[in-house]
């Protein structure tokens, strides 16, 4: 695998974020698109539930580019792994890891909606706009990651 430096990677991400801002008029985010994607799926099962959901009444799930961007990240990472000959199906040997990831993922999704954004929305998009809420989120995410790092050593 070829690596690029943190500095180079950071500059590339910053430039791409500017490109997103210019072309789409809104900063980069991940979890809004994810919640919209869930709403699309749920529309097939129970559209009345989606339309009666207060969150989706306020944040109408129609801006498809967020969803496309989310899938683009996965597709881009996949192509990068193929190009770097790093692609491999990886399955954790410790089966508890699945439960751990499931619970952690639920917490992440819940936290991202509670905080109106994940680390991308807040740190990559909110902090550059000097949003106070994003600075608070940044401190809380860093604190949460610290607590998580103390817990994970007991779980592995």
């Amino acid at each position, binding site marked *: 695998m070829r690596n690029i430096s943190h500095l180079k990677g950071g500059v590339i991400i910053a430039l791409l974020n500017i490109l997103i801002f210019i072309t789409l008029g809104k900063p980069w985010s991940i979890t809004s698109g994810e919640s919209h994607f869930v709403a699309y799926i749920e529309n097939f099962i129970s559209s009345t539930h989606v339309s009666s959901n207060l969150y989706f009444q306020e944040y109408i799930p129609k801006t498809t580019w967020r969803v496309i961007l989310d899938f683009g990240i996965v597709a881009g990472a996949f192509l990068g792994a193929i190009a*770097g000959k790093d692609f491999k199906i990886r399955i954790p040997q410790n089966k508890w890891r699945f439960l751990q990831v499931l619970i952690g993922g639920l917490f992440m999704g819940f936290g991202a909606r509670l905080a109106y954004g994940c680390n991308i929305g807040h740190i990559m998009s909110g902090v550059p706009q000097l949003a106070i809420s994003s600075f608070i989120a940044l401190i809380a995410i860093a604190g949460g990651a610290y607590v998580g790092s103390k817990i994970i050593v007991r779980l*592995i």
Partner: protein
Amino acid sequence: MNVIDVRGDICPVPLLKCVREIKKMKKGEMLTVISDHPPAKRSIPIEMTEQGHKFKIYENGPEFKIEIVVN
């Protein structure tokens, strides 16, 4: 010989397991870490250099093996 097989595990598990294992070992003993998580190929050597251990990396496609001699 001490071997830890962390194939399938992603960061920070490979590095944490490696550091935990090394703490239990004595000087001159060898630890082999088998992983398939590319970022671990960077994080483990960085930490081992910092701790002053000698290591060698053997690549085999997406998998790799790091042999560490505890100092």
